[in-house]
């Protein structure tokens, strides 16, 4: 089993886990956590797909760097919104 396959499976697992929680939880912080886990899973899929021992593919890495900073901004905005509405999405 190569590193590529291991991280591919694990990335898919993280995406699945995040979607299950997004579908079943009404708690703001859990949803934001699920969104973060989803982003990590997708990043892992991208990097595992670009994995090649001979060359380094800089384009997905640059995407992920941008993605990390945007994600943290979105997380901060969502949490500020969540604090404003008081923690329960289903009300």
């Amino acid at each position, binding site marked *: 089993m190569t590193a590529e396959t291991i991280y*591919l499976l694990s990335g898919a697992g993280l995406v699945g886990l995040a979607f299950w929680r997004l579908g079943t939880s009404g708690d703001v912080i859990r949803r934001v*956590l699920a969104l973060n886990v989803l982003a990590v899973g997708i990043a892992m899929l991208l990097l595992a797909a670009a994995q090649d021992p001979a060359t380094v593919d800089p384009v997905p890495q640059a995407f992920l760097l*941008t993605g990390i900073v945007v994600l943290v901004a979105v997380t901060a905005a969502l949490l500020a919104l969540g604090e404003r509405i008081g923690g329960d999405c289903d009300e």
Partner: protein
Amino acid sequence: MSTAFDILVALGGLACAGIALVAGNRIGSVAAFVIMGFFVALAWVRLGAPDVALAEAAIGAGLTGALLLRSANRLGPVREAGVPIAVHGIAACLSLALAGGIVWAFATGTAEAVYPSLVAARVGESGVSNPVTAVLLNFRAWDTLLEVAVLVVALLLVSGLAPVRIAPAPPSELVLPFLRIVVPVAVLLAGHLLWKGATAPGGAFQAAALLTGGGLALALCGLLGAGRRTGHVLVLAGLGGLALFLAAALGAAILTGGLLDYPAGSAKVWIIAIESALTLSIAAMLVSLFLGPSEGVRDDR
């Protein structure tokens, strides 16, 4: 041997994600998320992406965890409406199908890797030798410009929502020696990463994430962001970075005729200048996203 290492990292990441999403305890869930960041950074290192690992290390271990703790403290314990078991079952089946589909698509898909050769052919003209920095600040500098714009939008949104500013407990006297060592070292390291980013893993985002960590340490000890002026300075620094990036784009357009198409020969100077401004401005924006708006903007709720 290294296969065992990879499997342990992957399992650790999955286990932490599971704990973070299922734990009924707020602190446990946030701590699991922080630990997941450690495993994920190790995974990035194993996948040959130390640039991403640097940013993940700084953001995942520092800012996101602190943000989640802040909100967890304000929102109180987990409040779940109690979803029927059938919904859980359906969601689990759909998620499993999705994960299986992803594995199938990635395992059977055959795509030619087009970017590595293209980037390798042109990286000499970009002014820097780290291909990731070349992509971020030369080939796809547009994306980076828009990303800074996204940060500004998030900052405006948070200011508009006017959450309560953080009020950390007064620090104990033991914290000061700690801060006197850690914060200057963080600033030095940020400079080191910024300068190194042209030739080796590192760059503006990583440096900014590290500076943010230093800023958070100060803020959490009650030494930053207490007054109205700090908030204004941080927001202005954030906006200033975007303004400078735009000015550089327009200046390059006047000189060469293409937006963000740097003059031949001096590309490195442009990139380093833009990166330095970006480092300060991204760090300032991330710290103010954590702190909330400055006193003058806040209304009483």
